[in-house]
């Protein structure tokens, strides 16, 4: 493949920020600097005015394949990811069949081989995600699985979760939890509180998430296991994780762009595109999640990209499945909410950290993703324009599904190019295949 030359951008990675061009040959970064020039025959991509950072890494994507290809496939989801600046996705195991065996892991890795993002696989903690018996964690770890979760649901049984944490210790993997007490959350459609009361909808209280966060912190302390909390959404959860980290426990956490941007009042029009688990919460919760990210209590932003067909999202609110697509808008939303405008909450470098090298480390993908942009390292890169303004149009998205809560919103920050293993898979916002 020809040499790739990213010209005139500001390189931002874990070592800091600097004006530099970037030369990529045969899948690797070969040199960076202000004084370097492109080789003969190089494909030049304009990065002027843009930020060149490691390709984004999503800890939490639902690719729906196998089982619900109408909503998304590994291929379409990867294209959506690439357009969102992602070079690596961790596929969640609530597929049909679920990813609870080596065979299904293999199937998805196979499907992901030709896709625009590197697709890593998260395995289920329990067989069938039923919460009753341990899944073959070692067998899946052997195939490279580094993250295990029953996501879509939390592991309800404390004893089982304890055993899982203990059993996983020698495997060098991380267990991730979707914290939701099924009994407290039963039948719920949104956050329980002022809005659910007004709208006449059953809600789940913050405690439905917090009780499991509390339990799992205790179990992590008891077992010494490594634990990652998926999509934290409440002030109480953030506070508890902060305290646990302060005590040195091996705990990490993520938050979604929609929990950073939106609140429960979005449900006022009964639009199922705002229905999600965990639900959009109060202003206070949103502020705490933003603060938690800025303070480093929350390590990463993860999309929880959850595609659903139009028919599914046009059902009555209480019947519609929860979930929102997010790969194509994640960086833009996070940037708009946290870095753009007057009084930004966090510096751009911290935002990039939360979407690149920190999730790469949690996912065990740091060998190829998120790393410093320097000679010898794999070229998984993203060029984005922090000042570009654009309006979200789900009809124009690469995802097969349209259930975005940001329809019609104007965002500041847009992906220009995405480079995967040295190949430009997105140029000027257009997917190359």
């Amino acid at each position: 493949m020809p040499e790739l030359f990213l010209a005139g951008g500001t390189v931002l990675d874990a070592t800091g920020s600097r004006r530099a061009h970037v030369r990529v040959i045969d899948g690797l970064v070969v040199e960076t600097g202000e004084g370097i020039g492109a080789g003969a025959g190089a494909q030049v991509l304009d990065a002027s005015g843009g930020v060149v950072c490691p390709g984004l890494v999503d800890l939490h994507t639902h690719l729906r394949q196998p089982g619900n290809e109408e909503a998304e496939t590994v291929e379409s989801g990867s294209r959506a990811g690439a357009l969102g600046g992602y070079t690596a996705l961790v596929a969640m195991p609530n597929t049909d069949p679920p990813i609870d065996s080596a065979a299904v892991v293999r199937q998805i890795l196979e499907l992901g081989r030709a896709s625009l993002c590197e697709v890593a696989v998260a395995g289920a903690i329990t067989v069938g995600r039923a919460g009753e018996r341990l899944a073959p964690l070692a067998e899946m770890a052997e195939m490279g699985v580094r993250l295990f979760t029953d996501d879509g649901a939390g592991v309800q049984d404390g004893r089982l979760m304890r055993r899982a944490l203990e059993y996983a210790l020698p495997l060098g993997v991380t267990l991730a939890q979707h914290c939701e007490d099924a009994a407290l959350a039963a039948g719920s459609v949104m956050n329980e509180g002022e809005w659910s009361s007004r709208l006449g909808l059953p809600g789940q209280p913050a405690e439905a998430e917090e009780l499991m966060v509390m339990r799992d912190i205790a179990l992590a302390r008891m077992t010494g296991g490594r634990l990652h909390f998926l999509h934290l959404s409440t002030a109480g959860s953030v506070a508890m994780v902060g305290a646990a980290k302060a005590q040195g426990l091996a705990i990490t956490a993520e938050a979604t762009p929609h929990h950073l941007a939106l609140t429960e009042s979005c449900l006022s029009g009964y639009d199922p595109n705002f229905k999600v688990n965990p639900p959009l919460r109060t202003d206070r919760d949103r502020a705490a999640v933003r603060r938690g990210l800025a303070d480093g209590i929350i390590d990463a932003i993860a999309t929880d990209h959850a595609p659903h067909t139009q028919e599914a999202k046009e059902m009555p609110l209480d019947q519609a499945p929860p979930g929102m697509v997010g790969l194509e808008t994640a960086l833009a939303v996070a940037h708009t909410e946290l870095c753009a405008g007057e009084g930004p909450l966090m510096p751009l470098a911290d935002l990039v950290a939360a979407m690149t090298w920190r999730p790469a480390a949690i996912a065990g993908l740091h060998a190829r993703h998120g790393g410093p942009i320097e000679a010898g390292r794999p070229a998984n890169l993203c060029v984005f324009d922090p000042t570009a303004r654009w309006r979200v149009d789900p009809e124009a998205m690469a995802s097969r599904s349209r259930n975005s809560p940001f329809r019609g919103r104007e965002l500041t920050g847009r992906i220009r190019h995405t480079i995967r293993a040295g190949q430009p898979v997105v140029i000027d916002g257009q997917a190359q295949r």
Partner: protein
Amino acid sequence: MTSLLAIEDLGADGIREVLRLADSFVEVSERAIPRVPALRGRTVATVFFEDSTRTRLSFETAAKRLSADTMTFSVSTSSVNKGESLRDTVETVAAMGIDAMIVRHRSAGVPWQVSRWIDASIINAGDGWHEHPTQALLDCYTVRQALGLDDPFPGLRVAIVGDIKHSRVARSNVAAFSALGARVTLVAPPTLLPPSLEGWPVEVSYDLDAVLAETDVVYLLRIQAERMNEALFPTLREYSALYGMTRERAGRLCASALIMHPGPMNRGVEIAAEVTALPNSLITRQVTNGVAVRMAVLFRLLGAPEASEALVAHA
């Protein structure tokens, strides 16, 4: 205002307008030929995804008395059971050319979703636990009629008793009575109140007996037996002992107090059979007034012929 989805769509002035209009329709309903040509040529479709013969008939009678054509869709005879989606069902009905659609569904918010898909005026005939605006309007009308005053509401003490949490009638009535200036008190055990009453213009009491002597209108809500399975209260008997309108409790109301219930009633649970027949019970009148009030709502929404052309002419 083209649709009536929630009481707040009307505002206090709108509510009063509907109540006064209803007077005229009560008069029409008492004629030998209870019909006026006001909505001649208009088509009104009742689309009920939840069974309710009584409310559906009330709406259809109202439409017919205004000379509108009616179309009926009810879930048991529909293709919804064959897997046709909500949107498809609603768009199919609308495609036949309708001016208004009256929607009832067990899921809150469906009227809002429907209003985003079709052009007709939408009337919410009950969406899950959320609202049932025409019920609240006919309740306000019945109180006004019983007290014989145009505006008896300011300072009127209304107690709504029962399963507030799951009651669309309660939510609409809280909105309507309080908009008109009444003082609303909710009476229920804590488990039957919404999780948050933030912003609700109400007082709360867990003790019905304490509230009885200072109430002008007691509004009883139906208690569903199924709620026992959700650990909301232990038994119907205990509920009835604490919150039922027994003959004895009815006796402790002031002489002028009024008793109401939206129906259908669980006699012996939230209300004793003998209480329904007391002279200060408005329950039968609530049903009767339903048609006139719904005529008023339909007339207000649809009664300007060729309004869209007029809009163009005035533009």
